């Protein structure tokens, strides 16, 4: 589905991606890990066609994504429909006067008649437990509600690949868990998921595979999630965790967390 070969990208004179090669199959779920500023967000932007590689190639479903390819409006619109992006800051993604219109924005553009649009919006809203928010203004919702609306508005276009930039950021623990469960459900319905996150506790629930970035903006490891998380020395080396980081494994349900003492 997605294939990156030796992709590099610089932003305002700074290297943001360094020789990235990555292959993601249809139906896979991949988490991107790494300290702040290691290039996770840039990579997601590149996958969605917001930026294109300075060197190397990015192919989506066998077709190379370049500036030139994206200049063709038909191709670019189709590409954007197939790969949906949930921004880190939901504020920037919501620009309609009510939640219904926000979610309907995509399907309306795709030429569905108003009745089909309504059906799809209702379906999306109930998936994200937003039925009661239809007439609310997105701007005034809480952080968690905004995130849900943003996800609903992307999901309404029924993309094959869903890219989420730190979706757990700023959510309360309950909503965090709910979202992790929701992503797993999406995965089971055949979607491909690419998620950047700092949440080491939930990452192994979302993805079997994890890609770790280091400070040189290159990939330091691309392993099964539990194996990556077991390699604490590696996590320390890339500055993702400090020396207090450790694991409580009481047999059945192991998890990672941090004590501050």
């Amino acid at each position, binding site marked *: 589905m997605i294939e990156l070969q030796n992709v*590099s990208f*610089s932003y305002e004179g700074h290297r943001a991606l360094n020789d990235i090669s990555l292959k993601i199959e249809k139906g896979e779920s991949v988490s991107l890990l790494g300290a702040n500023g290691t290039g996770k967000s840039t990579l997601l932007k590149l996958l969605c066609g917001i930026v294109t590689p*300075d*060197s190397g190639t990015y192919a989506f479903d066998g077709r190379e994504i370049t500036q030139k390819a994206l200049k063709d409006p038909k191709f670019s619109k189709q590409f954007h429909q197939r790969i949906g992006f949930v921004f880190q800051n939901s504020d920037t993604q919501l620009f309609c*006067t009510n939640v219904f219109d926000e979610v309907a924005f995509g399907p309306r553009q795709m030429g569905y008649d108003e009745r089909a649009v309504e059906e799809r919006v209702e379906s999306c809203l109930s998936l994200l437990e937003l039925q009661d928010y239809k007439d609310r*203004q997105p*701007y*005034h919702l809480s952080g968690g509600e905004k995130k849900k609306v943003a996800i609903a508005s992307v999901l309404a276009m029924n993309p094959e690949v869903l890219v989420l930039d730190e979706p757990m950021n700023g959510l309360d623990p309950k909503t965090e868990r709910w979202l992790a469960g929701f992503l797993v459900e999406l995965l089971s319905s055949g979607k491909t998921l690419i998620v950047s996150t700092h949440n080491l506790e939930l990452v192994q629930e979302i993805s079997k595979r994890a890609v770790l970035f280091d400070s040189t903006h290159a990939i330091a490891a691309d392993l099964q999630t539990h194996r990556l998380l077991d390699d604490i020395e590696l996590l320390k080396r890339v500055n993702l965790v400090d020396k207090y980081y450790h694991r409580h494994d009481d047999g059945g349900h192991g998890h990672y967390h941090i004590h501050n003492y």
Partner: protein
Amino acid sequence: MHIPDNYLSPATCAVLGAAMVPVLGVSIKKVKEEISKAKLPQLGIGAAFSFLTMMFNVPLPGGTTGHAVGGTLIAILLGPYSACLAVSVALLIQALMFGDGGILAFGANAFNMAFVLPFVGYFVYKFIRDRVQSEKGEIIGAAVGSYFGINVAALCAAIEFGLQPLLFKGADGQPLYCPYPLSVSIPAMLIPHLLVAGVVELLFTVFIYAFIRKVSPGMIYEGAKKKSKAVYGLIVALICLTPLGLLATGTAWGEWGMDEIQEVITGGSALNYTPSGMANGFSFSALMPDYSVSGLPDAVGYIASAVVGVALVIIIFKIIAAFKKDAAAKTKA
């Protein structure tokens, strides 16, 4: 509508700049009355918003795009006095930091876009809103206000242009700055603004106003509840008086001939300059014959020409090198 330097005489710019001093003074006083002094720095964020509204490309029929100034919108949202200050700051930054719109012409640009535009736009909006007290009234007010605001501002710019050939001429009677008289400058400025820019401004203002009204009506400037009338008179008077002020301060007052005034009044044949130039043609070589520049000692002229030549070579070389380096970096990476 950003007037660059050298379209207007420095005297015109000075007069308009001087006119802005009391306007800004009153605005600061009014804003201080409306919000506490400690909140004044917030104006910077208003100015940033005002600056950014000019960056949006507004879709036009046929797939092309245009820019809005947004002066009336900002006046409706923040109040006319805050808008005046915010737009002035935005224009100052454009002139001083971005080299966009002249430095000398800052006074003129501020007069047109930070004073005339938001005040006219806002008071037309308020006039309609006070009389048609409904949502419709407010939207219509915003529409008519923004359309009027930008067109009156364009008219002011046109008058400023049109007065130049009357006021500022060289010894040979040729205009020193904008050469077009009022009979040309007014239609040249107004027709595109009435037909295109005004419509862009109107659509931009109305849609954003409607959005904010729906989402966060509390964010919109309330203003005085009472219907104010004296202010309209003041604004109209100020706008009418400005051209007179320009005439009065023009250094070329004495050079006015009866026929010129008649020409303006009758709108008669424009651009009636000495036709000799066309017959003679103009030779550029006359400007710098034999590498010497008239009026300068030969040596100075020669050195200047040498500097120009060498500098041009260095500059061209540097530009090529810069782009080559970029290309090289790209292929290497």
